[in-house]
């Protein structure tokens, strides 16, 4: 096949002038939809055995002894390995202070002296089959000495509380404060002050594919190969190598196909250390596939936060000052690498969001409790902070007697690039425009008329709005703007192969985002190739294109920047090759859809296959830079701050007698700058909004007062499916970033940040005749009935 020479377009569409911005169908879908994708559990290597973890049934307990004799006696059990066994072969898992005021912590991969949450691992049983491994697991006898549980932040921070991490001498693992202007003075003299306490529940990502690992160690070299379901193969290698006590060049991390991540899989977990360490210890490849109970009890949790927020307004509803205090229930360990501050720290940093307010005070804390660790799940603490602020503004609108949309419009920053009060370099957007678009799309005035009519007949409908901005393209600049003292490195390599096809390798990943398509669109345009001649590869730390992986709505921005920079270098060399072959000046060459010709003379063209053949095998006839560097280039890009924005609006009907919420309508307006592929943007927004609906109404990783875990299966951890979601209207505004390469912003988390507050505001609006307002999520029927019963309904 001759590349770029009229092969069928993959989408059977007319070839666009540019691929970016087009609704290109996802190139990865055929293998995914036909069930041909190979996930970790589809992999195997000769001699492989299976691991099962013995885990704590207690929230907090000392390990008195572990008796593995019965397990070892079971036919088929190969080994039982404890934390003490691995202590000499691995280093502690350390996580540093990401901010001043945060405690640096460290832990063994497998608990040695005590367990800190239900699901905390204490031993690994290795056997010939996963069934036998679980049989063996059940035979390991652990003698426990239960300790008083610390089930919540209040208990954790009380004087004399039992210590979760005895090395720290406190459960208060993080504290910070931001104060700008004179908020206290404003609150003293403001015409209106509105306060709210809001409790955000625990939720997580719960991907269809749970975590999984397959590890083998080469006995000769000591090199370890690890297949893992991760969002960040290179960063996993960098973080994991010292824990396994191997140099980075003797650790290969592969994440071939990942069945959903949502942030869950951008952490380093105890199992990530234990499984390869056990494989090395016993000299056999070991596989472990996390089950759903393990995923829910021992993965990372997210968003549980006690929020206290207050706003001071003048007589016209102009925001004068905003204060917020955010306390994360951080769970039992600091997640690696983000720590629990990924929630309360992020909530505090975005407290004023896109509002024009002159005085801000934000305080953030995190405490250890006997629950699973809090990590970076889609929307992180921004979603919790958004809930607190946006529900506060609806309460304030009711209190002051201003329409909630009008109150917001009066207080929004202009959409021009500017620094906001927190020092964030906003790169332009559509703050008021997106709110107005959502208001008009949902038919606000007509809704208010209908709402009044139905209320008279005893039906309670409500409407809620949630405008947001979201830091995207997370890298050094945006992390530092948010107060995190960290740095990033991301690169891509673009190589034109001898036959004129191109391979793009990236340190990003894709686990649902469609990057094989969007990044191919970027590369095709940047090179001037047909999209079917581009292949995007990722998912191995053996790739030379180091990168931090995919999370934090970063890949569209980072991918565009890195790939466009690398492709520009290769394209310049192709133009030199064409200029040589066509006996013209490189500046006069056009290269598009895989064919180069002299401008104005399209009849005399050369294909990229010819150019590549010449580039590889043209010996000393080639231009000098091709002789020196070939047709490959690697480029790094560390993007400036970018902020996507938009508004989600929701309509609900509340059944006061049952406390149920019927979600009837959702409108999501998204402005993620220049869209690479609107089809994929729609998918990202739709999925993120669904996750936000889950946070608002369903998802709850609940613990009992005694620390018992109450959400260990998908019977109790409920997430929305298509039957719980109404029709969506997905609308777009395209304001190119004034800062990023290509004007691109990220889009992955927006819906999850915005949707919960829209849904909750709609519920509070619906029940406003009863004089009560929602102050927690999830809004369960039991909670809503309690609230309404308290109000005499």
């Amino acid at each position, binding site marked *: 096949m001759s590349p770029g020479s009229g092969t069928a377009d993959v989408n059977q569409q007319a070839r666009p002038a540019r691929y970016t911005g087009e609704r290109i169908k996802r190139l990865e879908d055929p293998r995914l939809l036909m069930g041909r994708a190979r996930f970790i559990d589809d992999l195997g290597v000769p001699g492989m055995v299976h691991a099962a973890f013995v885990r704590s049934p207690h929230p907090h307990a000392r390990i008195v002894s572990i008796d593995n004799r019965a397990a070892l006696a079971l036919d088929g059990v190969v080994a039982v390995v404890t934390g003490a066994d691995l202590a000499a072969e691995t280093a502690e898992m350390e996580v540093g202070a990401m901010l001043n005021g945060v405690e640096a912590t460290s832990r063994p991969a497998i608990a040695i002296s005590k367990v800190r949450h239900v699901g905390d691992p204490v031993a690994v049983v290795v056997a010939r089959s996963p069934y036998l491994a679980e049989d063996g697991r059940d035979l390991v006898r652990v003698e426990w000495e239960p300790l008083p549980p610390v089930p919540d932040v209040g208990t954790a921070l009380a004087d004399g509380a039992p210590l979760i991490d005895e090395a720290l001498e406190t459960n208060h693992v993080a504290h910070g404060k931001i104060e700008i202007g004179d908020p206290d003075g404003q609150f003293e003299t403001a015409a209106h002050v509105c306060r709210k306490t809001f409790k955000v529940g625990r939720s997580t990502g719960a991907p269809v594919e749970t975590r999984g690992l397959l590890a083998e160690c080469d006995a000769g070299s000591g090199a370890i190969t690890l297949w893992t379901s991760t969002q960040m193969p290179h960063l996993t290698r960098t973080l994991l190598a010292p824990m396994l006590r191997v140099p980075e060049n003797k650790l290969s991390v592969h994440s071939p196909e990942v069945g959903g991540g949502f942030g869950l899989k951008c952490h380093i977990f105890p199992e990530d250390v234990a499984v390869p360490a056990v494989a090395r210890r016993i000299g056999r490849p070991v596989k472990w596939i996390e089950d759903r109970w393990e995923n829910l009890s021992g993965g990372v949790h997210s968003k549980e936060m006690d929020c206290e927020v207050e706003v001071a307004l003048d007589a016209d509803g102009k925001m004068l000052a905003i204060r917020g205090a955010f306390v994360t229930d951080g769970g039992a360990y600091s997640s690696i690498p983000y720590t629990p501050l990924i929630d309360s720290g992020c909530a505090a940093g975005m407290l004023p969001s896109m509002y024009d307010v002159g005085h801000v005070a934000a305080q953030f804390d995190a405490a250890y409790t006997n629950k699973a660790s809090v990590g970076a799940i889609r929307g992180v603490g921004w979603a919790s902070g958004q809930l607190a602020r946006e529900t506060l503004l609806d309460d304030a609108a009711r209190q002051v007697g201003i329409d909630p949309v009008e109150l917001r419009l009066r207080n929004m920053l202009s959409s021009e690039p500017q620094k906001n009060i927190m020092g964030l370099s906003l790169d332009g957007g559509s703050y008021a425009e997106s709110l107005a678009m959502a208001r008009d799309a949902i038919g606000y005035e007509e809704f208010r008329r209908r709402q009044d009519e139905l209320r008279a007949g005893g039906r309670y409908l409500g409407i809620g709005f949630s405008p947001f901005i979201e830091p995207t393209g997370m890298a050094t600049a945006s992390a530092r703007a948010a107060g995190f003292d960290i740095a990033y490195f991301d690169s891509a390599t673009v190589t034109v192969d001898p036959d004129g096809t191109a391979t793009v390798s990236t340190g990003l990943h894709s686990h649902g985002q469609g990057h094989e398509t969007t990044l191919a669109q970027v590369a095709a345009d940047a090179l001037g190739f047909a999209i079917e001649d581009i292949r995007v590869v990722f998912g191995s730390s053996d790739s030379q294109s180091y990168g931090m992986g995919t999370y934090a709505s970063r890949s569209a921005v980072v991918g565009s920047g890195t790939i466009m920079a690398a492709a520009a270098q290769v394209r310049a060399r192709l133009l030199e090759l064409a200029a040589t072959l066509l006996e013209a000046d490189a500046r006069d060459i056009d290269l598009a859809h895989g064919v180069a010709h002299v401008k104005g003379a399209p009849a005399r063209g050369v294909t990229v296959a010819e150019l590549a053949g010449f580039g590889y095998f043209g010996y000393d006839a080639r231009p000098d830079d091709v002789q020196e560097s070939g047709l490959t280039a690697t480029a790094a890009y560390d993007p400036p701050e970018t902020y996507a924005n938009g508004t989600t609006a929701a309509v609900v009907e509340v*059944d006061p007698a049952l406390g149920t919420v019927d979600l009837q309508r959702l409108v999501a307006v998204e402005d993620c700058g220049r869209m690479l592929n609107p089809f994929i943007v729609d998918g990202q927004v739709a999925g993120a909004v669904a996750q936000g609906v889950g946070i608002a109404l*369903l998802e709850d990783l609940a613990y009992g007062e005694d620390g018992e875990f109450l959400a260990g299966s998908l019977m*109790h951890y409920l997430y929305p499916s298509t039957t719980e979601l109404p029709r969506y209207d997905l609308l777009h505004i395209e304001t190119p970033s004034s800062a990023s390469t290509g004007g691109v912003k990220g889009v992955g988390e927006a819906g999850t940040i915005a949707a919960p507050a829209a849904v909750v505001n709609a519920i509070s609006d619906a029940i406003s005749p009863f004089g009560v307002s929602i102050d927690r999520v999830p809004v369960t029927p039991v909670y809503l009935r309690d609230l309404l019963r308290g109000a005499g309904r």
Partner: protein
Amino acid sequence: MKPAPFAYYAPETAAEAVSLLQEHAVDGKVIAGGQSLVPMMNMRLARPTALIDVGRVAELAGIAVEGGVAIGAAAKQARVLREDAVAERLPLLVAALRHVGHPANRARGTIGGSIAHADPAAELPAVAIALGAELVAVGPDGTRTIPADEFFLTYYTTALGPDELLVEVRFPDPGGSRAWGFREVARRHGDFAMAGVAVTASCGAGGTVESARVVLFGIADAPQRAAAAEQRMVGASPADPALAAEVAAAATAGVEFASDPYVSAAYREDAVAALVERAVQESAKTMEEA
């Protein structure tokens, strides 16, 4: 999420199944659709040492409509939903079945399996009581018939002996002037009910209720009839606009609502009051339509 070891038997006749059940009476378990048992086994909350799979016993899969409706215990829920003759006679059963899980669950789940499993929040046990069903069991001493009213004892516990097999569910001929209503509240469609109610009533020539059943489920350890509510319905006219609220008020009287970590007794009580009112209104409507 892998079950503990067990032996697996696939008998082809009911007699064979009963004899296997006798042999494994202590820790054997009958499996049909496996929609409840298999997850419990995978989580090792249930550890039967022998599974007796009745899925291949053809005589347990029949549906006979002749006056009443007799449904073999291993008949799939999805198949029952597709039978027009069942829908015609037992609209309540059909309405309730739509709340049992999702199509994938109902494709494997069976009528008898749900009844014998006796989850207190399941729909079919309540419907069996509301329709006055008889449950036919075969054991070593032959066949006996147990009224649904006496079948459900407590959580996951029925009147079946350890060596008895549920073979058939017999719904009596509902007759001509039969009213019904069904309401439940669940977190998501297809989830187990937080509370629910099935109502049936038959009316005499004068248009008043002659007999009624109000069966609550998802409220305590087993489905139960709300006797005071039933009494309130008898003699009343279904068209009486005050009736539904009065029956609802009576339905919660004297009922011990259970609390668990997910649903409070107070919620169940509130929900039952609202659900009974709506189910009674629905039953009045079905009466009008009839």
